């Protein structure tokens, strides 16, 4: 059994005549410890898959099971202890009135975990900040530091799987390199499984062993890193995408 199993996922927004099908019949299977990429252009539905998995997209059909817990039928708290998400824009994903330490501690407080204060410091150190950053507000941090904090918050419940939604596309390339390095280090140290969404094939190539290409709500092709490197994709759309990204 795979760590992430998504079968026949369809997601739609709106109701009645205004209903829009955003994802249609997507199948994804990611093994434990793997980093799997999801690429596509804007509006292809790649981020929607992550949102549906986390229960942030209202209407979806199909089956999502992560780390053995069913997203629909399984208990919600248990599911959220297994999988967490990192959002695209670190300027929008941290509460402006919460101190950094509070933001990281909040998931642990909600779930009544022990040793909140010590764990907060451990997490800050794990992402390359210091204990002193606990008492900073988000607006006092740079974009890269904020995204590190968002990663620390996602790790606060010690999940097995992270869903990463364009985690570096709002950052400068030099900061992107630091965040990607951090993500790889954390994956190796903690045996995490990643499902990462990006429009940047170079980022996916750097991070992942396999990827799926999406277009207009459908997965057109799933390929390995080798085919990405050689450009030997089966679908013409994938080849165009690779050519434009070089």
């Amino acid at each position: 059994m795979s760590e992430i199993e998504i079968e026949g996922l369809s997601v739609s927004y709106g109701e009645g005549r205004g209903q829009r099908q955003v994802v249609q019949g997507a199948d994804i299977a990611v093994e434990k410890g793997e980093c799997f990429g999801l690429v596509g252009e804007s509006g292809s539905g790649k981020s929607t898959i992550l949102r549906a998995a986390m229960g942030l997209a209202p209407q979806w059909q199909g089956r999502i099971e992560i780390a053995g817990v069913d997203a629909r039928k399984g208990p919600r708290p248990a599911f959220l202890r297994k999988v967490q998400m990192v959002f695209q824009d670190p300027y929008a994903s941290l509460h402006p009135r919460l101190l950094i330490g509070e933001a990281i501690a909040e998931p642990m407080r909600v779930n009544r975990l022990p040793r909140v204060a010590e764990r907060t410091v451990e997490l800050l150190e794990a992402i390359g900040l210091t204990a002193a950053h606990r008492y900073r507000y988000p607006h006092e941090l740079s974009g890269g530091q904020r995204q590190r904090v968002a990663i620390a918050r996602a790790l606060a419940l010690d999940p097995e799987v992270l869903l990463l939604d364009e985690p570096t596309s709002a950052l400068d390339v030099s900061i992107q390199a630091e965040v990607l390095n951090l993500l790889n280090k954390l994956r190796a140290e903690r045996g995490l499984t990643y499902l990462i969404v990006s429009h940047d094939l170079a980022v996916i190539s750097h991070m992942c062993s396999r990827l799926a290409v999406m277009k207009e709500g459908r997965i057109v092709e799933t390929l390995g890193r080798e085919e990405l490197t050689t450009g030997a994709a089966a679908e013409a759309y994938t080849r165009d995408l690779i050519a434009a990204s070089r």
Partner: protein
Amino acid sequence: MSETAAPRASALQARLAELSRFARAFRRNPLGMVGLFIGLLLILAAIFAPWLATHDPYAPDFGGRLTPPGAEYWLGSDELGRDIYTRILYGSRITLFIVALVIFTSAPIGLFMGVISGYFGGWIDAVLMRITDVFLAVPKLLLALAFVAVLGPGIVNAALAITLTAWPPYARLARAETLAVRNADYINAIRLAGASPIRIIARHVVPMCTSSMLVRVTFDMAGIILIAAGLGFIGLGAQPPLPEWGAMIASGRRFIFDQWWVAAMPGAAIFLVSLGFNLLGDALRDLLDPHAVRRT
């Protein structure tokens, strides 16, 4: 940007640093400082009225009726020979009491209704907002009048009557703010921690409403003072011999052409205080309103 700032050792220190940053920015707004000064003046006058007063606010002195402003009566005396300066000082207690009572009842009610409405949406939103609309549809003073007419005149009833008309705009405001943040990623992140709606609303949504509420409340203080004075003026607020400013104007109305100070002095007090709250509100909006462009 913060790399040069000194490290902080506690959350309290972080909040104080934030507060002092705010204070520094506020100090750069001279009109705001004037407003703050007037507000503080009102509070100090209310606290220290017995020490600042020159006469007894209630004891009549028929020998000194309707004396113009001078050395004995700084702001003149009224038709019963009472010192107007002293009565304005004591009146500030009544004004402050009404304002505080209205704010502390209407703002929480409005905040609660608005946040619940905005966060849950659907039929809850529809029901709560239609109730709000009903209150908004009736003219403010008319609704307050009807309420006082039923319960009888008096300061507390006047304040409650104003509350009845003051909360709906807060509900609208809180709802709008909630709609703006409820799908923000930082709220989604808290949802993904498994937090209950009550916790999300209380700890994460409400703090995002407070700054615009604060601005609105400050502006409204001026309006509340005016309505309270209006109720006093038509005899439905504070009753004689209480030195309520509106009631004082009402009693001075008869002498307005010959002994202008009887009505003009409490009028000036009302003017000054509502101007102060408006200036304060303007300054706070410049600093706190995320939609207003930062002027430098």
